[in-house]
């Protein structure tokens, strides 16, 4: 027999709550449940089958499909290819205020350095108090150069400068730090658009905070309207978040989650593993 709709709804309800409690956005949870129901349409269920187990397996598939996008990003491989072409690999980091962009840049820089690549930083957050000093401290700690102008200067110009410096000095990667910005602020969205246009980066990385709730969907959607997100990094997983926001963001952007930020130190960067995440959420 086929799955009885009422029984299916009752089973899905518990999984729904689990997803919501793990910060998967409501409209994404709705869609996930829709997909599960679709997949179970016409599927024969034996009277003695463990119905909950069957739904869990299908749910696992649906979540995996959202997270496992067809383009998996191997950062080191991409950077090495550009090095062979004698061009710098350019990454622009964007996201709303306080998500961990600047710290993540330092982590990525450390990762590249420890794999033998040279890095230069671009202080393209020319707005927030202390942003240039913060990034500069990271540059000093890492022993790499940072290109900066003054506060209030043009963010795109700083990035442009850094890229030219990288080309002239044969530096393998340029990491561009940008100011945090609310997706509801159109002027800042246009500024971000300009930075991406001017730098023509190899990757635009959206940095999201794992503690974010339903707003993660709105953030990813809006940012995606102005610039095309190539990949996401989700930070502060160590704050006890299961990382459900990565499902919301992946659902919206259809792009991979590259790394997870699991702490404030340079080595607190973990390769994203969709199965591991799904396991934790459905536990």
């Amino acid at each position, binding site marked *: 027999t086929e799955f009885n709709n009422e029984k299916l709804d009752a089973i899905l309800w518990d999984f729904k*709550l689990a997803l*919501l*409690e*793990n*910060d998967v*956005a*409501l*409209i994404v949870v709705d869609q996930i449940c829709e997909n599960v129901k679709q997949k179970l349409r016409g599927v024969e269920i034996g009277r003695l089958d463990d119905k909950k187990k069957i739904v869990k397996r299908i749910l696992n598939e649906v979540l995996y499909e959202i997270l496992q996008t067809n383009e998996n990003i191997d950062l080191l491989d991409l950077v090495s290819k550009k090095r062979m072409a004698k061009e710098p690999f350019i990454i622009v980091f964007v996201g*709303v*205020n*306080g*998500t*961990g962009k600047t710290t993540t840049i330092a982590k990525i820089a450390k990762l590249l350095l420890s794999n033998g690549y040279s890095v230069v930083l671009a202080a393209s957050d020319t*707005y*927030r*108090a*202390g*942003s240039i*000093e*913060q*990034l*500069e*401290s*990271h540059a000093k*700690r890492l022993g790499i150069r940072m290109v900066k102008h003054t506060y209030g200067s043009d963010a795109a110009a700083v990035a442009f400068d850094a890229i030219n410096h990288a080309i002239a000095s044969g530096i393998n990667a340029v990491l561009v730090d940008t100011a945090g910005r*609310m*997706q*509801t*602020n159109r002027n800042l969205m246009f500024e971000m658009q300009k930075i991406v246009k001017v730098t023509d980066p190899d990757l635009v990385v959206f940095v999201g*905070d794992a*503690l*974010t*709730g*339903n*707003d*993660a969907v*709105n*953030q990813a959607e809006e940012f995606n309207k102005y610039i095309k997100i190539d990949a996401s990094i989700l930070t*502060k997983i*160590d*704050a*006890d*978040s299961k990382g459900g*926001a990565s499902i919301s963001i992946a659902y919206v952007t259809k792009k991979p989650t590259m790394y997870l930020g699991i702490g*404030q130190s340079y080595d607190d960067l973990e390769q994203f593993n969709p199965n591991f995440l799904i396991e934790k959420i459905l536990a």
Partner: protein
Amino acid sequence: RLGSSLTDAIRKIIKAPIVDESVVNELVKDFQRALLQADVKVQLVLEISEKIRKRTLNEQLPRGISRREHLIKVIYEELTTFLGDIPAQIRINPGVSNILMLVGVQGSGKTTSAAKIARYFQKRGFKTALICADTFRFGAFHQLQQLADKTNVPMYGDLNEKNSFKIAKKGIEKFRSEGYEIIILDTAGRHKNEESLIKDMKELAHIVNPDEIILIIDATIGQQASIQAEAFHEATKIGSVFLTKLDGSARGGGALSAVASIKTPIKFIGMGEGIDAIDTFVPSRFVGRLLG
């Protein structure tokens, strides 16, 4: 966004010919969705919606009020019960140094809010000062210094001192001896799983003995809000909450869940990056935002 706006749901009741059990159940469902999408804690949503359903179906209808009006009244009551209905203010004792200590999760807006609070009180004639007791984050000193300079409030910090307790003590002694009435202490970000950092915070509060410990909460926070707030409250008694980033699209249900859990009033809100983007918290406005 079907069902995400509670005002739409309420409009449905207003249009409904009679308010019977099916209308109430339909409303409660819409209500749940609105609250979930607003980031209210899942268990709290289930509790509130069940209460509303019971009250509207079982409560004796007060005289002269329609079933419809009663339903709307019940919804409003159940939501504001956690927020209080009158705006709460920070109590400043005149003629002494009042110490306000800011704590919260990484990136929630402590440093920015510290400067905003300083400006708020300075504008009201209080002699106000800032202390940077965040010795961990790169650029924290410069960030607070630059913000302090914007509003001409003195800031004490020490780039060569790694011990935040020493900085806090020195800063308070200095500003207290100079007759400052409000001393605002910015601290490093931390979350509930960083046990040593939570312990540090506890010790700092013990040393400094602040008049009020303010928990900074980001309006975009989701289901973790109350869990984090409880951990902070368990370590040091939180006096009030400062809710930041309300200029975004987040509805703030996480913050509501947090204050519902630790029973602490929200006294300030932040609606922008500028140091003037601060306001006192008005419960009714917030409920409006929550309901979309």
